[in-house]
């Protein structure tokens, strides 16, 4: 049973990758190479950072595992499938850790793969009202829903960021992960009634979305930046550059969402992955993100025209 499952998973991965077209696929492969090189280097110099980041990502994937119900209802040993997923995701990282004889980290990662399979938390389907939602403007439904779905990981990250801000890497790493989590806020498309409820023209609608995202994200990470500047003011440019990169990526994801807008669906993970690779993992390529954002802005204008043409 496991062999067909692995085959199916690989098929899904290949289908997603090839679904993005030849040009983007070439870029994707180049940046996968960069990513692997980054992981390889990190596993030699800072294996514990790599291990911690991988465990966090595995935890997030497990919480949001889309096949959970299917696997639970169809297979008795469904945790074996979870384990397979974890091992497939971490295969390259294991390889890199073992290559550099980082036995302790490799063992910790392996144990965490087992532990993650027993993680049975699901925040997505439950009402979780906090005071934070009240402070978010009504029009930012992505944030209201996003905070509700990811309250715990966001809070853990944010508090860890504040608590560990005396260490130079902590705040940039936390901002990096918060930036990634925010991308997920825009992974789902809303019904067209939501777009029309704004009663704004297309330009003003897109501007409003970008403005609110930037404002809310900046508000959220402001204390982190403040703490970073207190302890490491001489490295202000690190957090400055990271802020620009993350905001650029958020603008990209918003424009991408509306460029490919189909009511009540999800935007392709492959497209967001490209943005992630371009922007966060290889930030020197941020001009490519800016170029793509301009391209998607015009596509978004076309796509939204049918819904907002009467409000211009």
């Amino acid at each position, binding site marked *: 049973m496991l062999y067909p499952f692995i085959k199916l998973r690989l098929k899904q991965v290949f289908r997603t990758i090839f679904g993005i077209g030849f040009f983007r696929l070439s870029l994707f492969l180049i940046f996968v190479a960069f990513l692997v090189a980054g992981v390889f280097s990190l596993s030699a110099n800072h294996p514990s950072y790599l291990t911690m980041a991988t465990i966090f990502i595995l935890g997030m994937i497990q919480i949001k595992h889309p096949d959970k119900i299917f696997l639970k209802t169809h297979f008795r040993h469904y945790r074996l499938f979870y384990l397979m997923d974890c091992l497939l995701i971490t295969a390259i990282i294991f390889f890199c850790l073992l290559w550099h004889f980082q036995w302790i980290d490799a063992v910790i990662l392996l144990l965490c793969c087992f532990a993650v399979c027993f993680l049975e938390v699901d925040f*997505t*389907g439950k*009402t979780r009202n906090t005071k934070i939602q009240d402070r978010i403007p009504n029009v930012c439904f992505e944030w209201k829903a996003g905070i509700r779905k990811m309250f715990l990981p966001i809070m853990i990250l944010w508090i860890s960021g504040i608590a560990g801000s005396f260490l130079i890497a902590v705040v940039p790493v936390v901002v990096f992960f918060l930036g990634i989590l925010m991308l997920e806020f825009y992974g789902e498309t809303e019904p067209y009634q939501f777009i029309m409820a704004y*009663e704004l023209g297309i330009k003003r609608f897109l501007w409003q979305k970008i403005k609110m995202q930037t404002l809310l994200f900046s508000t959220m990470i402001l204390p982190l930046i403040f703490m970073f500047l207190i302890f490491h003011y001489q490295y202000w440019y690190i957090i400055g550059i990271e802020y620009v990169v993350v905001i650029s990526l958020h603008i990209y994801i918003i424009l991408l969402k509306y460029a490919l807008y189909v*009511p*009540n669906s999800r935007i392709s993970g492959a497209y967001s992955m490209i943005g992630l690779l371009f922007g966060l993992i290889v930030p020197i390529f941020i001009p490519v993100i800016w170029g793509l954002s301009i391209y998607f802005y015009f596509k978004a204008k076309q796509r939204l025209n049918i819904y907002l043409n*009467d*409000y211009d």
Partner: protein
Amino acid sequence: MITINNICVSYDIKIIDNLSLSLSDKEIHGIVGLNGAGKTTLLNTVFGLKKPLSGEILYNGQKLSKKEISYLTTENFFYTGITGEEYLSLFKNKKFDVNQWNELFSLPLNQIISEYSTGMKKKLALMGILKQNKPIMIFDEPFNGLDIEACRMIRTILLRLKEQGKTIIITSHIIETLTNLCDYIHYLEAGKIKYTKGKNEFDDFQQELFEAIENKNNKLIGNIC
């Protein structure tokens, strides 16, 4: 007055074929037709979600704008992870008292919408339409998935909206629902309005329609068993 002039709409095949129709103000207009007759396509076109290949739709002589219409679709979609209250807060209307209306609908507005039943989602979508408070209101199968109490309540609300001067367009598969509610019924067949009937003709219309369907069914079923 909404005036639909010779519109043609197509999704690969022609769904609406040279359809013309006048819908008078402050009345309830029912659109009835068999499955696939083009009811939802017609409503989508009136709302502006589908552009007609030809023809035009006017409201009091001007091009009909989305600013003047609200539309309750057959299936109601929401955004996962937001509460009913947050959904309603998207629509701008300070005069609309959500709590007062909710005494009627009894929805758990502080719960996320994915925890709602189908009927509750329909009621929430209806509250959204009411909050928009537009002069033209379109309801595509508003009674689907609702219990008898909710159906009667919606009927009363629609009649009240008509009294307030709204123009209402409604579709339903259940002819009795429309005959009890509408001022006019427009019968759609193969993308065209076959006939329009006023209130005093409803009984004859209903009988004729049922007889025609019965004859057709008897003939077809007689061939099979």
